[in-house]
């Protein structure tokens, strides 16, 4: 009942790969993700692809279909010509793990850097009162399903890895905007944070992010532009400018945009070098390597168990009060020596070769 359609899917991993051709049956009413699933069940059981809800609600199956960043589950096959070859590639902005799966940890890293909601100190749970009209502005941004298509399409980082350190991307601009517009958020420095820490200034409003948003969030018009406007208000406000001249460096109020240069203030990553606009390339080798490293979420070597210390941070060395004849082991009492070899996290580089 189906028709045969041509697909070209990128297969490979961090070391490289290429487009592979597949001819696959497509039935009426199917979407691109269905075709990928059919391939997994038939020709390519190990074809890697993320997905969860298959209803456009979780934002997992982000991919580039004929070069356009899209959700696989929301791209109907009926939108293509019958004889059209459909090319599916992984998101370009993030490092490939395998096939269509990319390492999106950049986004989670930026999420962790964005200061969280600060609850008002004078309200107990249940006492929050807000008007619908006031919460709606933030609610628009909270529709975000974190598919990271906006991050992927943003040209500031799409082909400029070196900008990743200084630039958080549209997803986190609307997070800042959402908190800025939250009627009860206790912080007042959201806009300045967006400017100094998130690199809001890099955005030159090409609206690509808005265009690809599957939730139709008006990222640029309702999130980025209002924040830029208000940042500009402050930045070029003559009183603020005068204030920044009168206060000595280091005394500059936290809200000033010049805080990045004051030694006492939080280190501003936007001001710390390795920062280039879309047009420029990076010439700072160190910053580039740093940016390329990113964060690897899983690979932390477990810390040894810390010994039990007292309030002053010292080992309880008094034999009188301790239940043993000597001080506790500095490695913690649950560790005995020698450690059994299988408890070691160390793997000799040549051990595989020796065993075979």
């Amino acid at each position, binding site marked *: 009942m189906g028709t045969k359609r041509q697909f070209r899917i990128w297969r490979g991993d961090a070391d490289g790969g290429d487009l592979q051709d597949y001819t696959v049956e497509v039935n009426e*009413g199917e979407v691109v993700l269905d075709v990928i699933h059919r391939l997994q069940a038939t020709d390519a059981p*190990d074809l890697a692809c993320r997905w*969860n809800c298959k209803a456009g609600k979780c934002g997992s199956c982000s991919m580039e279909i004929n070069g356009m960043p899209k959700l696989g589950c929301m791209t109907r096959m009926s939108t293509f010509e019958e004889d059209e070859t459909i090319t599916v590639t992984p998101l370009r902005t993030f490092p490939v793990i395998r096939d269509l*799966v990319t390492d999106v940890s950049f986004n989670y890293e930026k999420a962790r850097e964005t200061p969280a909601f600060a609850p008002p100190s004078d309200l107990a749970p249940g006492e929050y009162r807000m008007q619908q009209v006031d919460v709606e502005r933030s609610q628009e941004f909270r529709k975000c399903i974190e598919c990271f298509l906006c991050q992927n399409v943003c040209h500031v980082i799409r082909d400029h890895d070196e900008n990743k350190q200084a630039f958080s991307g549209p997803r986190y601009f609307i997070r800042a905007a959402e908190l800025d517009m939250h009627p009860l958020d206790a912080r007042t420095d959201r806009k300045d944070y967006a400017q100094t820490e998130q690199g809001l200034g890099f955005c030159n409003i090409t609206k690509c992010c808005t265009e690809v948003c599957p939730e139709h969030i008006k990222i640029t018009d309702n999130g980025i532009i209002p924040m830029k406007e208000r940042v500009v208000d402050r930045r070029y406000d003559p009183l603020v400018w005068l204030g920044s001249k009168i206060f000595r460096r280091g005394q500059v109020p936290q809200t000033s945009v010049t805080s990045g240069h004051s030694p006492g203030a939080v280190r501003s990553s936007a001001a710390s070098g390795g920062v280039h606009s879309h047009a420029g390339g990076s010439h700072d080798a160190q910053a580039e390597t740093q940016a390329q490293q990113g964060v690897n979420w*899983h690979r932390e070597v477990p810390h040894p168990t810390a010994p039990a210390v007292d309030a002053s941070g010292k080992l309880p060395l008094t034999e009188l009060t301790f239940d043993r004849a000597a001080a506790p082991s500095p490695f913690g009492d649950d560790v005995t020596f020698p450690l059994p070899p*299988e408890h070691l996290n160390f793997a000799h580089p040549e051990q595989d070769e020796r065993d075979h």
Partner: protein
Amino acid sequence: MTTTTTRIERHHYDVVVIGAGGAGLRAAIEARLAGKKTAIISKSLFGKAHTVMAEGGAAAAMGNVNSRDNWQVHFRDTMRGGKFLNNFRMAELHAKEAPQRIWELETYGALFDRTKDGKISQRNFGGHEYPRLAHVGDRTGLELIRTLQQKIVSLQQEDKREHGSYDARIKVFSETTITELLLDGDRIAGAFGYYRESGEFVLFEAPAVVLATGGVGRSYKVTSNSWEYTGDGHALALRAGATLINMEFLQFHPTGMVWPPSVKGILVTESVRGDGGILKNTEGKRFMFDYVPDVFRKQYAETPEEADRWYTDPDNNRRPPELLPRDEVARAINSEVKAGRGTPAGGVYLDIASRLPAEEIRRRLPSMHHQFKGLADVDITKEPMEVGPTCHYVMGGVEVDPDSGAAYGSVRGLFAAGEVSGGMHGSNRLGGNSLSDLLVFGKRAGGHAATYVDQLAGRPRVAVAAVETAVETALAPLQRDTGENPYTLQQDLQAVMGDLVGIIRREAELEDALVRLAELRERVAKVSASGGRRYNPGWHLALDLRNMLVVSECTAKAALERRESRGGHTREDFPTMDPQWRRVNLVCSLVGDTVRLERKPLPKMRPELIGLFDRAELAKYLTDEELTEFDALVAADAAAAEKEND
């Protein structure tokens, strides 16, 4: 041989939470707030869990819209919805604590829809006496998970300030699957699994594990559940010596999309029918009038004319039969399709286009209009929708202590919360009770896991041999190349469950299902996966299959045993509710690798709780013996009251 060639990353934690949906995240927050070093294991990326699919809202008797609402009313509704098979204590705790859990979310940054006076707005839902569901449009689940995710980030930021590392006390292991729980005697000692990304193994040494892995829907062909719902937690618990209860109860939502195939199973909200949508078969007949059961005869219209008048004049007309309870409608659709009057895709038509003007449909059902337009290219203002029952939720799950969420059975240090735990919803869950369930029991499980760790004299140790076995089991499908493709096996399992252990069950079919599941077990034991260990979905599915299989066996066995129809369990050969069966829970455990089924009496409701119901209602559910007891209780109360007055 394996330990020398296989690298296993090791981590030490106090509490390991398996599952990063609503229940898991809430449990992790609580464990971290109790000062425990906590790991969150997420099968997908952080924030993608199935909780995002919840639309309607979270039920909590805050009384913001109707001040007469309180926990007693919510408790009554929940027990009624579950046909009195619920664990009463869980229903009680849930009703009492849900409002606090919702208010707490606001302090984490959640933005619910508001009432005119600025409080959290609440909406009506099936089975709830008053407007009770806190909601954010139709994306409440997303708001809930995002809020909890952001709360975890805020805790990590605190830890960064204090300890210099975001991961100092709470860490998310995304795209990580746990395949085995490891024990030291009867105590939990750790959890073993793999990173999906690299295929490398990881061992968490931890004295307490909280299961929050959700449901089992992927064992069914038509389901509203995501791929993660393979019953991992259910199976891990069984293998660790815990027990499952109520596994025969699955909620099938009557109206899921069936066409096109890409969206098969996705929910079509009940409000379509509430707003005038009618169900028709392929002969164009409005068939629900043929399926009104006798007990409901008096409340439902007999003619289309009367039914149509109800929408505008509900006081003088009876309800249209399209609005019968979920199980009745699901059964009716099923019968029509089986009688050959369904669409080729196996559904019936849900028609709103011929009932309301296009403008009105767009105004009242914007998300449905959008859903069908976007996913199916169907304009519901012009053509009918194609719908059929879809597997939605499993009421059964890990048998837990209602207060602490600690698993019963022989294991210690294991906790469960959310859909993976059983008892709270009895035989049928009310809409909206799921999101509040996650929060209430997630918090409890996380807190009690922390307390359990505090009370431990020594830390349980992971046995090296157990890790080796786990490695071998995990690698087996990759090392075989003679077995079957895991996708074929999953399709066969789905066919068995969908056809033989579906909405309507019959003794012969269930027996047949057990035979076929036994055959599948042999085949699954020999499954092979091609490719390497790096992000290999075929291998992942091969490992999930054995979980799906054992959970399916529990469902089939329990369904065969329970000779009555109640809530999410319908036996064609025993079509009515039997009060004797209400007193029985069916408990599954694992002996060797076979499922053992036992009957266990239901805990008895405390007098002040059963006193919340009136006798006429109880008479529908209780045995004569129980009713006599209830009467004695009422009489004693009356006597005591009189004495006080004297």
